């Protein structure tokens, strides 16, 4: 089992950051690596169980199912159904927690998955840097000011 953990501080109230990231279909609106996304079967993007079908800027296609969504605890959990990455049983959670000191946001993004041992290190660092940290960097830019 490989594990990715990336966390950051976003200089905006957590309710504002959550408004942006809670929409399971909104990745193209804030994540620079995602080109376009749709929810299958015309379902609402906050319907637990819905599936997003999206493409990266490089054309790769990924399908993910929403497993859990909480407006109270501000987290979103999802699983990969289809992707070009050599991994299985991928489950990830994006979670926000308020930082009361300064009214900021502590953002954590974790993933666990199985893969061949020889590709684990590359997958962990690639997902951590290009997906999770890149997403946080984009949020930090977009929420500034």
């Amino acid at each position, binding site marked *: 089992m490989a594990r990715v953990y990336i*966390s950051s501080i976003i200089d905006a109230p957590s309710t504002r950051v959550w408004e942006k990231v809670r929409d399971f279909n909104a990745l193209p609106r804030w994540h620079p690596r995602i080109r376009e996304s749709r929810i299958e079967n015309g379902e609402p993007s906050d319907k637990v169980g819905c599936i997003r079908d999206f493409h990266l800027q490089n054309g790769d296609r990924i399908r993910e199912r929403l497993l859990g969504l909480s407006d109270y605890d501000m987290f979103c959990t999802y699983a990969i159904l289809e992707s070009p990455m050599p991994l299985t049983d991928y489950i990830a959670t994006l979670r926000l927690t308020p930082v009361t000191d300064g009214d900021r946001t502590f953002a954590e993004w974790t993933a666990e998955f199985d893969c061949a041992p020889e590709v684990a290190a590359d997958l962990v660092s690639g997902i951590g840097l290009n997906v999770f940290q890149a997403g946080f960097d984009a949020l930090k830019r977009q929420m500034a000011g």
Partner: protein
Amino acid sequence: MVKVIKSTVLNAPVEAVWAVLRDFNGHDQWHPAVADSMIERSQPSDKVGCVRKFHLADGSELREMLLTLSDADMAFSYCLMETPVPLLNYVAHVRLAPVTDGDRTFWHWESRFDTPLGRETELRTMVAENIYQGGFDAIRAHMGLEGAR
């Protein structure tokens, strides 16, 4: 039931902050409200179930029991057993998490308690500002850290 949640970010690696916070008997070294502290029966301060007896600057005596300690989660919880301040059924949880972006520390401190009727706001403010926020600021001074912002 009153609930207090305070959190902050420290410009230090989480292991360094945990090294200070995990000592249940170490708060008199850094918290300005605590004058002295000892663990009853000479037990080690990381023995779950141990009781710390401490005095505030005004001389009042409090006793708190360690309910949970986890090096894996970098978290502990404790309850008030005896206090001259009417914080009833007080249970508090402290947890640290790494901020990988910048190798910093997220520190979460929360509690629930009951108070006599009509004193909720006063006691909530005392816990949130004097104990928790005051503790955040004191750790920064104790560890020689700059402000978190």
